[in-house]
């Protein structure tokens, strides 16, 4: 189910989170990382914030065609502290 599992707070409903942006391809320059988007039906790599919880920033990998969350971890790396 398309709940996000926050490494700090556990599974939470999407309404607690805010999507920020999709991430550029590795090595993208400033213009590309601000404006260009890598579009894929299978994988979207994104930054989200748990605004209604711990306020941590999360690196989320999702399948945008099914809504399935493939992975959710802290942006700075690692799982729960």
């Amino acid at each position: 189910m398309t709940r996000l599992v926050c490494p700090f707070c556990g599974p939470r409903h999407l309404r607690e989170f805010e999507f920020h942006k999709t991430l550029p391809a590795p090595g993208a320059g400033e213009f590309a990382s601000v404006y260009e988007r890598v579009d894929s039906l299978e994988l979207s790599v994104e930054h989200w914030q748990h605004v209604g919880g711990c306020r941590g920033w999360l690196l989320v990998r999702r399948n945008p065609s099914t809504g399935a969350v493939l992975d959710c971890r802290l942006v700075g790396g690692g799982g729960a502290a």
Partner: protein
Amino acid sequence: MSGPQPRYSAWSLLRARLSGDGYWRPLWGGRPLRDAYDVVVVGAGGHGLATAFHLARDHGVARVAVLEKRLVGYGNVGRNTTIVRSNYLLPENHYFYEDSLRRWETLSRDLNYNVMYSPRGVVDLALSDDDLSGMARRGNAMRLAGIDCELLDLAALERFCPELEPRRTRRFPIVGALVQRRGGTVRHDAVAWGYARAASALGVDIIEDCEVTGLRTAGGVATGVETTRGYVRAERVVFATAGHTGMVGTMLGIPLPIETHLLQAMVSEPIKPLLHTVLVYVFPGHGETYICQSDRGGLVMGGHLDGFPSYTREGRWDRLEEVVEGAIELFPQIGGVRILRQWAGTNDMTMDGSPIIDRLGYDNVFVNAGWCYGGFKAIPASGAACAALVATGTAPDLIRAFRLSRFASGHLLDERGGGPFPVRL
């Protein structure tokens, strides 16, 4: 396909009644996919069909095909909340959308298909003096461009939309409104069908269940498209696949300033006429509801994007609740009316909120995309202008600002000042 399309009118209905079965003809289709075209348009949504129609009608392009992955009008042209208006701030936008609105006014006659243009007014509600100043800025720009619009104080708003009871106590009191009376609604499906019928009558081949899977090029020039029905040669190719344009970029290896987001719409069960205009209500705390009543009687509503990239076309329940909250705040009396259906479309969201009509990677490949919230209302102008670009090679003034290079040059068209963040509220 056999026989020409009968011209639609009350008389034709009577004739059909008297002549029994077999009088009406399919609106489009019936011709096989050929192996070469002057122009291949990818996507039989509003923009693709309108582009094909204008290529054939205005520019005499003989061999035009519209290739559609699924069905005519299955995408956003049939999923939106049917609102048409030209009340934009930036001149590049309001001249363009005004051109579109003028075409909406006569489209039923131009296509000989009733698209039910209903100029019932589009009202932006103001909740503060700052809102009003912002609306005045936009409205004044429109008026100086010769576009109708009025700023309403509470008394005038009450006269225009008494059902709203603008003076009623609300969490965020209404202080006035900007109204464009020529704005209103159009029956969405009819637009796709009307363009498809008219284009087909002009000789355009509309091929459904034909997905374009690749672009073939030679010497820096596109030579045709790969499809699920085989290779099709093309002198020129137009991608009009808003909602999936990001995928086109991926297919061509050209990253685009577009993210794909879901936008929901919902409709109530039909009731007798209650709301006679279109209201747009934006309030603090991420609140947004736009609402009108369809001719069938259902209250049609929408709000914000779902808030993250998605192709699922399955909306968020909490967004449905939020839109309804706004509707109830405007009209407490509809609390007992039930929501019947909710659906979602996929929106091309660009990084400045304005569209892109331009060449894409090759001199003979074009893209008509990035419509954000404005795709439906843009269809007539977009089709005409995009056809002119494709046929003549030169972008008409009306869409010159919609070029792709604007992001790199800084000639942004950021109507709302939101920057490169489609979902920022």
